């Protein structure tokens, strides 16, 4: 169906500083329709800030974020083009869920019938006339999703949508996002945990400290991570790999290269005329590859994990 077709989302060198804090720096990536794109990064990486810039809520220090070339504020019917659920729960506690949705449906000239439809869709039918102040975290999350869906938009932008959902809800969300993407919509979903989205996303963009560290398929994330390599002349090999842009660590008598694929490592050795005695791409788990990428995590709690795995090697 043509009306379902989402537009692409383009971030171009977008940057945001809050005073001295550089929340997002020079981030560029594109989100295509028809697939679910995961937007990953540890706490404080700048995910929410990036999404809020896309939606015109935060003014970028520099750069642009657009929907097929148009800024959010220039969209003729924003809620019918882009559906948004941001992590902060933005509800008046004294208003019922149904009235909450009516308020914004009215602002966007969306027919009132949609309110009941989306409440049913997210499973809030029985609680729709309760005041939101008494809602659980998962119920608020569902109401946030209902708000995102109210205009039946072609683009969905969801900030940590599985936060607070029960296992049943998480499974439902996975299927739901996949189905929306299969219809041709654009789906961008953020998370600070790879495991939460790895079953539902096709592509990932990973940021840490406001900078992109990976953009591509999940499979590429796994394979390109580490290559064990050795040669008779190890110092020369190390120099050749570093010159080719890899990071090299000695490990149990061989070298471990990161930042290059096995093919690139082989090519670099060939170019330097070095005979390899070992070339083995390591299939680290997705989670490990992810943690390796976001490595130096500003969040102390999250930092324990990569350091521990580093030492275990």
């Amino acid at each position: 169906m043509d009306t379902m077709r989402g537009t692409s989302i383009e971030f171009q060198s977008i940057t945001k500083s809050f005073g001295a804090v550089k929340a997002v720096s020079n981030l560029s990536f594109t989100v295509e329709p028809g697939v679910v794109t995961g937007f990953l990064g540890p706490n404080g990486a700048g995910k929410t800030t990036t999404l809020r810039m896309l939606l015109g809520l935060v003014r970028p220090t520099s750069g642009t974020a657009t929907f097929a070339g148009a800024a959010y504020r220039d969209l003729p019917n924003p809620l019918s083009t882009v559906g948004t659920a941001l992590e902060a729960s933005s509800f008046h506690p004294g208003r019922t869920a149904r009235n909450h949705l009516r308020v914004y449906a009215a602002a966007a000239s969306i027919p009132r019938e949609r309110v009941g439809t989306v409440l049913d869709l997210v499973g809030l039918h029985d609680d729709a006339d309760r005041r939101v102040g008494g809602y659980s975290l998962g119920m608020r999350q569902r109401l946030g999703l209902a708000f995102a869906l109210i205009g039946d938009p072609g683009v969905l932008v969801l900030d940590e949508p599985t936060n607070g959902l029960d296992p049943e809800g998480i499974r439902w969300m996975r299927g739901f996002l996949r189905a929306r993407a299969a219809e041709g919509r654009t789906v961008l979903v953020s998370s600070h945990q790879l495991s939460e989205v790895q079953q539902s996303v096709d592509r990932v963009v990973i940021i840490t400290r406001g900078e992109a560290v990976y953009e591509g398929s999940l499979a590429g994330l796994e394979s390109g991570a580490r290559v064990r390599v050795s040669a008779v002349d190890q110092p020369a090999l190390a120099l050749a790999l570093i010159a080719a842009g890899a990071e090299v660590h000695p490990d149990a008598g061989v070298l471990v290269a990161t930042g290059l694929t096995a093919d690139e490592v082989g090519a670099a050795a060939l170019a330097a005329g070095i005979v390899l005695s070992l070339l083995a791409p390591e299939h680290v788990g997705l989670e490990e590859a992810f943690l390796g990428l976001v490595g130096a995590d500003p969040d102390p709690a999250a930092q324990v994990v990569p350091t521990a795995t580093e030492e275990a090697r």
Partner: protein
Amino acid sequence: MIAAMRSETLKLVTVRLWWILALILLGYVGFTAGLLAGLFGALGNQLAASPGAPQLPPESLPAIVYSTTTAVGYVFPLIFGALAVTGEFRYQTLTPTFLAEPRRGVVLAAKLVVVGVAGAIFGVVGLVASMGIGAPVLALTGNDGALGSSETWLLAVRIVLAMALWAVIGVGVGSLIPNQIASIIVVLAFTQFVEPILRFGTSIWDWTAQIGQFLPGSAGDSLVGASFFTSFGAGAAGAVSLEWWQGGLVLVAYAIVLSLAGLATSWRRDVT
């Protein structure tokens, strides 16, 4: 703009604040109007009975009693207007609001109009109290409630207009001071403490009185044209007063300046 106004109207009627405030206004204005009607009604009769004493003209009584709607009630629309804005900051509902209508100026304009209408409704509620209780009490003390006089009804219209403008000014205050507690404190401190002192202080000299008449409370009293504060209170001594329409324009000017200042500051800020 029409859609934004419908949204703002729904915002007001889907939470309980408006009718809680309306109920308190009803009780507070009704009580004050009844008290003044009884007091001045009886006092006027006494003074009339003692020749040589200063007279309280009986035809001024209804206006004094009915204008309690604004004299004691104007803080209600003012606070209501401020809460309509600061609540959006407090509960972070600016996020869905600006997602649904990214033209932020349109949102503020719609809010000004809708809250202004709500202020007028507060005015009607206040008049129901002040006339509904004041007129019978005046009658009990043998005075005329003047409910048949066109002057009384023109007064009522000016009161409704004043209440609407106070609500609009409240929106301006809220958009300039988005912190809910801070803006309520500022409103209460200014209306209950700072302005009465300024009005009294400026009434001492002629030249300061020229400035004092532009204080929002003085302008509001000029618009209504009667208030027991101006009739008997601190301001009476040397205060001069604007024409009713000038008072109205001064209130409009306050509303515009505050709202534009809010639009240029808090309303433009990042919503995080």
